Structure formats: structure tokens, C-alpha cells
């Protein structure tokens, strides 16, 4: 006599270490295999888009820090670019270079967390995480030197950056850039060919290129599927066209490739920082901008390649000192569109690996 079975629904999260914040998945299982998955959001919704409508353009900058808190510099960057585009403000060249240096360091720091947390989820309990934190700590020290903060930097300003770098910054940065390739080698040596890592990630959660494009995936998730699309190259902003770097792309679009692309991007970011440091011009770091900036009537969309993908800000101005509409194109949220399709057919442990490889920050997902 056949056993009578029925699908079981399990609530995964919102309080769970592997969801990287307060994120819930309603997972339906047939035995051990996932047959359906629905992400549930909103546990960290603070209404930042609405809040920003009551703040002046400058006052919004600290709010952008609190979107993707693992890449605050990138959020600052995208937002100030949007306001500058809207108001037609020129930025001194030194400030542009400093912004690129900070954004690329931020990318390294963010990818370090993404990779460390990913291996944590896979069961390599805190060893890779601690290796990654060793280097992230150095980047945070560098950020602390320039703006006194270690998480929410609020470093960029409309028309430049808040302070010029202190004397001790460049030697420390040079030391870091010289060391970093060696550390990345070390990660590769530890992880890239580890048998357990390969068994857990190779061929798991394959995202084909056409599907990645159709689902508006961006960042490492899109590039791991073999799509050579990086806004730094495709639609260069700031001074990114002054530097030489490659866009690493994956072949399979599986969980391993998403990890691999992040490691390669760290190498490329190191290259960019090195070039930016050598070419760093002297001069002002901030243009004079009225304290109560009133951009002309109009609207603007500015996007950058943040560590998680296409981060865009859409601003509408009605010539008042406050944005009429402030909208964030949040890469973490949109990358989750593919989560269900990737997880169906795999087991729960694989779903955790897949979610870890997408690399979400809930503060940005929920806004």
C-alpha cells in the first residue's frame, strides 16, 4: 500500500541567521524537495522614500547610508550623482577620484562580507568569515581615517566629499593595496578548490543568462550567468572611464560562479584603487553649493554599479528645497525575483546556499 503524503509548508525566518536579517521564506516541501517558495518582505520597512520627501537634498544623504549598510559609500555615491545631474553641479576632479577610491574599497569590503557569510551558511562555521573580516577591518580603518565612521559614512556631499583625506591615508592605502592580492590568493587557496565547497555549490541553483536578464537581475548575480554587463563600463559615470579593468563573468550561472565572480571583482577593484591612487590629482574636494539647494524643475535617474548590482535613484524636483519624489531602485530586492525559480527542485540546505550567493541586505530590500 503506497504511503499517503502531502506537501508541508515551513516558515523559514524571519529570525534566522542564514537569512542575513529579517527575511522570511514560506517554503513548501514535498518530502525534502522544495516545490514552492515565496519570499516575504517588509520586516525592516522604514518608509525611507516617504521620509526623504520631508528632508532637504543634503539631509537625505545620511538616510542613503541606511539603505545598504554594507555599502554605504556606494549609496552616498549614487544619490549625490543623481542630485548633481539634476542640479547641473560640477564636481572637482580630486573629489571624483576620491569617490571612486571609496566606492571600490567599499565593493571589496562588501564582497568580503558576502563571501564570508556565504561560507558561514554553507557550514564553514566562522573560519572564512574571520579571514574576510581581517581585511575588512583594514578597509574600515581607512574609512574611519577619512570620515570618522565605520559603518554609516555620510562621506559624500552634493558637489564633492566632506573632507580631504588626511596625510596618513595614502601610505595606509598603499600598504593595503600591496597586501590585498596576496590575501585574495589565500582565499582561493582555502576555498576555490575545496571539495566540500565544490560539492555544495557547483551546478546548484543555475540561472541561465536569458532568465537573469528577463528578471532584471544585476551585479554579480547577472554577471555569473555570463552576461557582460557592468554599469561602470556600459554607462561610465564619474571618472570610471579613466581606468583599466576587466569585467569577470561566470560560465554556468550557478552558486559557485556567483561566489567566483565576487572574488574576481575584488581583484579588479584593487586594480582600480591602485590606478586611482596613482593618478589622484590635487586641488579642491568640494564645490560651493547653496545650503538650501533648489534644483530646477525636472527629474533624473542616476545609476551606479553598487556591490549588489544596479543601484539607481530617481528624483523628481519641483524647484523646492525638498525632493518631490525620491525612489530607490534597490538591487537586492530585484535580484530576489529569481529566488523561487532557483530554489525549486533543490533541498533546504541548497536554498540557503542559493540565498547566500544572491547576497541581500534587508535594509535595502525593505527600505
Amino acid at each position, binding site marked *: 500500500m503506497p504511503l499517503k503524503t502531502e506537501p508541508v509548508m515551513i516558515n523559514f525566518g524571519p529570525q534566522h541567521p542564514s537569512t542575513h536579517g529579517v527575511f522570511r521564506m514560506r517554503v513548501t516541501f514535498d518530502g525534502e524537495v522544495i516545490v514552492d517558495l515565496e519570499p516575504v*518582505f*517588509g520586516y525592516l*520597512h522604514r*518608509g525611507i*522614500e*516617504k521620509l526623504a520627501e520631508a528632508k532637504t537634498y543634503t539631509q537625505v544623504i545620511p538616510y542613503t547610508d541606511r539603505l545598504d549598510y554594507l555599502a554605504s559609500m556606494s549609496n552616498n555615491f549614487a544619490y549625490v550623482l543623481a542630485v548633481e545631474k539634476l542640479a547641473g553641479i560640477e564636481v572637482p576632479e580630486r573629489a571624483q577620484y576620491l569617490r571612486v577610491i571609496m566606492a571600490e574599497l567599499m565593493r571589496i569590503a562588501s564582497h568580503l562580507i558576502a563571501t564570508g557569510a556565504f561560507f558561514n551558511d554553507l557550514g564553514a562555521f566562522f573560519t572564512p568569515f574571520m579571514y574576510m573580516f581581517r581585511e575588512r577591518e583594514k578597509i574600515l580603518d581607512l574609512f574611519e581615517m577619512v570620515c570618522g565612521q565605520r559603518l554609516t559614512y555620510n562621506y559624500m556631499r552634493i558637489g564633492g566629499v566632506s573632507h580631504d583625506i588626511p596625510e596618513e591615508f595614502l601610505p595606509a592605502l598603499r600598504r593595503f593595496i600591496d597586501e590585498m592580492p596576496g590575501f585574495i590568493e589565500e582565499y582561493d587557496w582555502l576555498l576555490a578548490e575545496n571539495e566540500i565547497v565544490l560539492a555544495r555549490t557547483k551546478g546548484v541553483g543555475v540561472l541561465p543568462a536569458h*532568465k537573469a*536578464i*528577463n*528578471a*532584471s*537581475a544585476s551585479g554579480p548575480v547577472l554577471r555569473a550567468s555570463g*552576461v557582460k*554587463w557592468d554599469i561602470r563600463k*556600459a*554607462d*561610465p559615470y564619474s571618472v570610471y572611464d579613466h581606468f583599466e579593468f576587466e569585467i569577470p563573468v561566470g560560465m554556468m550561472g550557478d552558486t559557485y560562479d556567483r561566489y567566483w565572480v565576487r572574488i574576481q571583482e575584488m581583484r579588479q577593484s584593487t586594480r582600480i584603487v591602485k590606478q586611482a591612487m596613482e593618478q589622484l590629482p590635487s586641488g579642491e574636494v568640494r564645490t560651493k553649493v547653496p545650503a538650501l539647494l533648489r534644483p530646477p524643475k525636472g*527629474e533624473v*535617474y542616476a*545609476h551606479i554599479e553598487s556591490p549588489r548590482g*544596479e543601484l*539607481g535613484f*530617481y528624483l*523628481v524636483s519641483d524647484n523646492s528645497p525638498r525632493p*518631490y*519624489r525620491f*525612489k530607490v*531602485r534597490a538591487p537586492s*530586492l*530585484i535580484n*530576489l*525575483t*529569481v529566488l523561487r525559480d532557483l530554489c525549486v527542485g533543490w533541498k533546504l540546505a541548497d536554498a540557503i546556499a542559493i540565498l547566500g550567493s544572491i547576497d541581500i541586505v534587508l535594509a535595502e530590500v*525593505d*527600505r
Partner: protein
Amino acid sequence: MTKPLSPQEVARQIREHIPDAVTDFDESAVFARSEALFQVARFLKQNLDLDYLASITAVDFFEHFELIYHLTSITKNHSVILKTRCEKGEKVPSVISLWQGADFQERDIFDLMGIAFVGHPNLKRIFLWDGFKGHPLRKDWSKNAAQD
């Protein structure tokens, strides 16, 4: 650089294929009638290779809403901004069958701005809870009104 296609040229091409769908264009965007939005979007995807829906935004202008679609072609590296206007309470066709990436973005707009999309398979609130009253990103929304 991503090349923005001339809205005038795009509007002309759409008009040739779908009469009465385009109402207007300006220096950055093409405006489509909301009822014809799906046909226009499909035309843009198929004929101008706009395979990537970068973002959807909704703006409340009191007398009407404006929906802004940022479309990009990854293969050809060009972009088009498609806009449409709708009245309060009017339903707009969903583009989820063209671009899966519209899924959470349309739910986001439905939740916070209160624009319903016809053809979305799972249109429900995304951030706020089901019993929440009103749509906070609307300009006429107030905390007190929501507590009634």
C-alpha cells in the same frame, strides 16, 4: 555609454505599428496611453531589443499618477524611457509577462502608491501588512487618515 534613443524617433516607430498608442514625447521620454501600455512595451521589447527592465517608478502628481519605465538593451546598449499617465483608481496593464523583473516592482507600487496592475499573478502588499489602510507614498496620505 548607454545611448538614449531619440524619443521622437521611437514615437514615430511605435505610431507606425500601433496607431493611437503614443500620446506625446518630450526630450527624454515617450508617453503612451495607459490602455495601450502593454502593446507598446511588447513592441519596444521585440523591435528595439529592450530586453532589460531597469526600473519602474510611480509618481503622484495629485491629478494623476505617472509611471516611468526605464528600459535598457543589454545587447545594443541603448535605452528608452517610457511613461504613462493614469487616473486615481485606474488599472494599468502589467508587463510581468514581458519582463519577470517587474514582479516585485509592481507589487511595490501597488503597496505604496495604490496603482493596481491587471495581469499580475500575485498582486498583494509587499512591505506593509494586509490590514494596512491607504498607500503611504501618495501625496494626500496622512498618518491620521490611515488610523481611521
